[in-house]
Each structure stands twice: as C-alpha cells, then as structure tokens.
C-alpha cells in the first residue's frame, strides 16, 4: 500500500488507498505525522496561565474525529426518529451539537481516567468505546443494552472503560466524581476523573460542596461545565448571577474553552489532566450548543429562535469545522468524507435493526440487583401477579394468590 508522506504545509494530495482492491475498506489515513493547528479562539483562564493555542494533531486523528462525530450525530438523529416512533419511551436527551466535547476529551485521556456525566450521556458512552448496538438496545429497554435495559437513556454505564454514567438527578454526579478522584489519588493510579455537568447544574449547592472538598484535599478532579447556555428552557443569564462558570470555582483555577472545536477541547483536557495530577482540581467550561431541545418533549424553539439554532449550525458546527480542516489540509476529499458519512449511516441503521430484534428483559429482572444476592433480602418471584410483596424484618411472605 502506498502511503504518501504528508508534511505539515504540504499541498500534495494524499493518495487514497484506492490502490487496494479492498473496495469495502475505509479510506482512513493512518498517517500520524503531526500537524499543528491553531484553535479558532484563545483560551480564557482564571488563576492559571492558559495552554497554547497551537494543538498538535495528525491526519489519522482528524479523520477519526470526523468519523466518530459523524457516528455520534447519526446516532442521535436515529434516536430522535426511534423516539417519535415510540420505540424509545420515557426520556431521551440528545447530544447533537456537543459532540466535540466528548471526542476532544477522549483524545486527551486514557480509558483509566474516569468520566462521569449527566443524563445527556449517549455520545459520551460511545466515546468511551461503547457500541451502537448496546446503546440502541438500552434506549429501547432491551436486555442487550449496556445497563441490561434497566437504566434507559439516562443511565448508560461502561465499567471496563471507567465510564460511571449517566445520572438523572441534576448535579448529583459532581460529588460522586470527586469521590472517584479521591479513590484514584488514594490508589496512586495516576489517573484523573472528568466530572461533567451543565450550566443548569452549576447552581446546585452540592457542586460547591464537592469543589471545596476537592480543592481542600487536592483531588485529581477535572470539573467540566458543558455550557450549552440553556438549562432546559432557562437561558444562562436568567439563572446565574455569574455565567462565567469557569470562574465559579473562586479558589479553583478555571479555563474557558470553545466547546465546538474538538482540537481546543483536546488541548484543554490534556492541560487539565496534567494540572489535576499535580495540583488538584480545575474547572473547564466548554462553550457548546445543543441543536435539539432539552429532551424529546421539548421542541427547543420556544425559548430560543430558530435563527439562533441555524446560525450556530452554520458557523460553529463541530463536524463541519473538522471537515473544513481535513479538506484544507488535503487529508481527504469532500467525496470521501461524504462516503464516510454514508457508511456511518449504514452502520447506525444496522445497529438499530439489530437492537429492534433484541428481547426485552425477563419479568424477574424487576427484582434483581436491588440488593446483593445472598444477604437476606430475597424476593420470590413467581409471576408478575404472584410474588412476594415485601421482605421486611419479619420475613413474612405476603403472596397475592390467584384462584
């Protein structure tokens, strides 16, 4: 296979791998020669010197950014249609528009670093290595889902990739994240925890409690505020006295990052990880945007104008930004990128079809994993209408009998 060498300012065209006869292979560059790209906006910082605007990347990385973000985008749009088709019930909070945060973060860290986030977790799960099939199964409540169908959209977890989920209660994950960081420091793991929360959660009391603890004990916690400027329907200026969330830490240093620029996110996360390992907590504010409403029950246009949404989509869309970078550096052509998107679409459709065929959990699963088995809280499940209704101190079985 002929790989052309790409120098940082080269204008030679990348010879696509079409020289091979493997027509099904993706035309992804495996070139890892570093390319330096400047972030579009400088970093704003609080109590710390910001990292450099020059980010090192490579064609391989840029193409993988593009592909993974396109995958995430497609997944969210497929989830949208599934919800409207009533195959996904309950609540569904979509992440499209914010993909750069998940992707940039992954590029800067390892699977040993922990991530914990809120209910808008589908793409974070994918970023951590989660599969499309597991994601769609979980959304549709099937046993093959990542949480065995018992969690749903808001509760995706992946233990082997240190992804601690997926939390429904706003802000509740922040003290948890600091606890994870403590455990990492205690075990000398040289790993950090990225705790993600939104601009709405930034006003929760428990966040400040956790921040104080993290700072007091120098925990390797990176608190990431994904500021998409709307807490459900409330704009940030209406709910926060100080919308400069990166400064809210007061004594904790902070950095404001353009969250729609995957490379800026990568740089900031790399910087934050180094800082957290040496000096304790740091706050990152990702200036990002979500195209969908808060959840599928929210049209997303009653508290913001459609012009605003389409404006952001035209000017700041993360995938388009990477696309332009790829084309500008001649890593791939427009057509190749489009082909990649088509492939991604097929992949998502296949995963959806497979997930639709998956079984729903057994009724006995209703009672499993409330407590640990074998410690005296057994529930006898016979059928949905006939079961032990309570397990109390008296161990009395109350059974509803069928005649």
């Amino acid at each position, binding site marked *: 296979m002929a790989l052309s060498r790409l120098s940082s300012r080269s204008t030679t065209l990348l010879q696509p791998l079409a020289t091979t006869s493997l027509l099904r292979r993706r035309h992804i560059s495996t070139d890892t020669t570093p390319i330096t790209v400047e972030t579009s906006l400088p970093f704003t910082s609080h109590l710390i010197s910001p990292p450099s605007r020059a980010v090192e990347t490579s064609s391989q990385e840029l193409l993988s950014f593009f592909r993974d973000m396109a995958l995430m985008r497609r997944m969210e749009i497929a989830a949208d249609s599934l919800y409207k088709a009533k195959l996904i019930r309950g609540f569904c909070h979509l992440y499209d528009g914010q993909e750069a945060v998940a992707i940039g973060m992954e590029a800067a860290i390892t699977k040993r670093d922990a991530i914990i986030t809120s209910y808008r977790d589908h793409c974070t799960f994918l970023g951590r290595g989660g599969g499309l099939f597991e994601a769609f199964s979980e959304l549709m409540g099937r046993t093959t889902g990542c949480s065995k169908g018992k969690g*749903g959209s808001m509760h995706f977890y992946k233990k082997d990739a240190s992804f601690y989920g997926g939390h429904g209660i706003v802000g509740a994950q922040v003290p948890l994240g600091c606890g994870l960081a403590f455990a990492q420091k205690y075990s000398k793991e040289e790993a950090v925890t990225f705790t993600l929360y939104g601009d709405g959660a930034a006003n929760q009391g428990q966040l400040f409690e956790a921040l104080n603890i993290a700072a007091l004990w120098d925990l390797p916690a990176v608190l990431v505020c994904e500021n998409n400027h709307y807490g459900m329907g409330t704009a940030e200026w209406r709910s926060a006295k100080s919308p400069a969330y990166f400064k809210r830490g007061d004594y904790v240093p902070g950095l404001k990052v353009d969250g729609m620029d995957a490379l800026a996110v990568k740089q900031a996360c790399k910087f934050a990880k180094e800082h957290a390992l040496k000096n304790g907590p740091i706050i990152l504010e990702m200036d990002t945007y979500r195209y969908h409403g808060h959840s599928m029950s929210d049209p997303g246009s009653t508290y913001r104008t459609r012009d605003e949404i389409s404006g952001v989509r035209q000017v700041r869309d993360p995938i388009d930004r990477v696309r332009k970078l790829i084309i500008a550096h001649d890593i791939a052509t427009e057509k190749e990128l489009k082909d990649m998107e088509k492939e991604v679409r097929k992949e998502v459709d296949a995963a959806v079809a497979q997930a639709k065929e998956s079984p729903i959990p057994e009724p006995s699963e209703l009672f499993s994993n409330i407590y640990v088995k074998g410690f005296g809280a057994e529930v006898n499940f016979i059928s949905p*209408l006939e079961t032990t209704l309570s397990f109390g101190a008296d161990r009395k079985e109350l059974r509803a009998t069928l005649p």
Partner: protein
Amino acid sequence: MASLLGRFCRKLVVPGSAHGSRMISTTACDSEAVKSLNLYSAINQALHIALETDPRSYVFGEDVGFGGVFRCTTGLAERFGKNRVFNTPLCEQGIVGFGIGLAAMGNRAVVEIQFADYIYPAFDQIVNEAAKFRYRSGNQFNCGGLTIRAPYGAVGHGGHYHSQSPEAFFCHVPGIKVVIPRSPREAKGLLLSSIRDPNPVVFFEPKWLYRQAVEEVPEHDYMIPLSQAEVIREGNDITLVGWGAQLTVMEQACLDAEKEGISCELIDLKTLLPWDKETVEASVKKTGRLLISHEAPVTGGFGAEISATILERCFLKLEAPVSRVCGLDTPFPLVFEPFYMPTKNKASSSSSLSSPLKKKHYLIMGLHVWCRYWMQSSPLLITSHSICFFR
C-alpha cells in the same frame, strides 16, 4: 388585626358529617358557575385566586414564569407581575429554604418543585427547618405560609426519576401537613386550603391526572377542609382507602367487585398528615375489612401507618388481615412499570377481597389484556356528586 387573621382563615367552613357528602365552603351555592376543567387548569385557577386574594403571596420555582412544565402556573406572571411570580435557578434546597424564609416574614410562599423525584435535596430544609420552626422558637416564628407543590406518581413512561411517590417520607415529620387531591375539583379546594392553612403544607399533585381528569369545577373561591377524609362510595363488605390517582384504579376494582356482589366502601384520605382516623375507623367497624392501596413501595409506605392504627382501633371488628396493594419493593422501574404498579387486578385478587367467607372468584385477565387496558383505557370515575371523565 382582622386583616392579619383574615389572611390565614379567610373562609369559615362548617364541619359536617364526613359520610357521603362533599365538604364545600358554606359560601358556595349550587347555582354558582361551574366549568369543565382538567387538573392543571383547576390548580391554575386556585393559584390565580390565592394570589388575587392575598397581595403578599408569591409563586416561584423552576420554569413557573412561562407557565411551568405542566402548565399549572400559566398566566400568573403576566397577571401578577414578575415580582410575585418568578423563576428560580435549578436548586431545590435553595428554593425551599428561600420559601421558608419568605414565609417566616409573614408571606405566603407557594413553591413548586418540578417533579417530586427532585424534592430530596430540599428534604433537609423541609424536615429540619420548616417542620420545626414554630416548635423550636416557642411560637415566636413560623413558616405557616409555606406550601410546597410537586407533581408525583407514575405516568406510564416516567422511569426512575419522573414517577416517584415520596409521600411516606413526609408523613413521618410532625410539623408539616401532606395533602394529595384526587381530582380537579378536589385539587382546587384543597390547594386553596393548603395555601391558607397556617402550617407548612406539602401538596402532591398526581401528574397522571393533569390532563386525563376532567371535572366540573366551581369557578368561585372555595376551600375543602384538610384532615377530613371523604367516603366517595358507600358499601358494606369492605373498606378501601387510597389517595390521588390510585383512587381511579380502586374505583375500577370496586366496580368489578360489584359485579361479583361485593359492595365496597371507598374512602379518599385527601390529607395524609394528619389523617382522618375517625372516618376510616367508623368505616372499618362497619365493614370489618380494610384494603389500602398506593403506588409507593409497600414496605414503609403510608399504608403501613393506616394498617397499624386501624388494627389498634378496630382489632375485634376485623374479619380479615388488613391488605395492602401497593407498589413493589423495587426502585421505580423503566420497562417493568406495568408489573410494578398496583393495578385493579391486584386489588381484586388480594386476600381481603377474596376472603374464603365470601367464596368469590374473579376472572383475572391475561397480562397482555390488562397491560393494554392500563395504557389505553378510558375509565369513568363516579363520585357521589359529580362525574369525572378520563380521556
């Protein structure tokens, strides 16, 4: 002085027999205008009246300004201004604490918690501050003007964090009142009573009924007394006690039992703390059997309190053990909601209703049939004075 008193007991309500009659303010007349309203409209009307009649009352919470996620607060901000009806940031503990402070200054604070599932950060404020304020200050201070409203209960697809019924936690706290309406007409009267009651009240609204329940609601200002249970269906064979949305399910079980010849007495508790023990006791002394039903998990649910009290009071009159048909002891599930919920079939087949003395047998529909029924049915709830349609 009179205005001070007037603020807290605006309407006098004549107590009367709790059996079979609806308690309405004496100033109500039957010829008063009524309008067909659903639950959120009735609550909206109650809030309009509360703010209108007391210039020192406020409504606040997350997203109440534009009308709230369930539209209970529509039109309030436009009518009474942003100084009296305003949004708060996302911080339940802060919101309730702030409400306690406002109430301590003699105002009426009507706080909205967006879903009852989110009330727990505020639990400390409610239990440790609101409930104990009057007591620990020797009656110098109180936060009686505080009313906390929260939508509770299953809705079909709510999952873990949009379906919980936390009433039992609050019933364990002396110093607050816990009120749960069953229908639009009840909700308006009970909410006005709760707001005007000189004690802090936690008011749970069954969110499933926000749109589903439609009833004729009088348009005037009326209050329904707290701590008075109502017998909404008279019977002789068994007493059923419930509150909120669960009553519609129990009504169905009563109708089914009727076909088998069992006459059921159905009681709506309305106020859970302090609850009307006398009404339930009198009913159980008449029937000899008791069945309690609620959505919350059975262990430690409020049914346990009712069961224990009735046992103490009516032991010799009971013909069968007190039966509790409640949610299962699991976190509120996602896909398993139909199995978790205490449906009418579970009520029908419970030991009290199918006691050997009666020798009744019930046809239990297949799971798939009642699942469909649960999702798509449109049952009728007939109260003693009005018809409540469920679309």
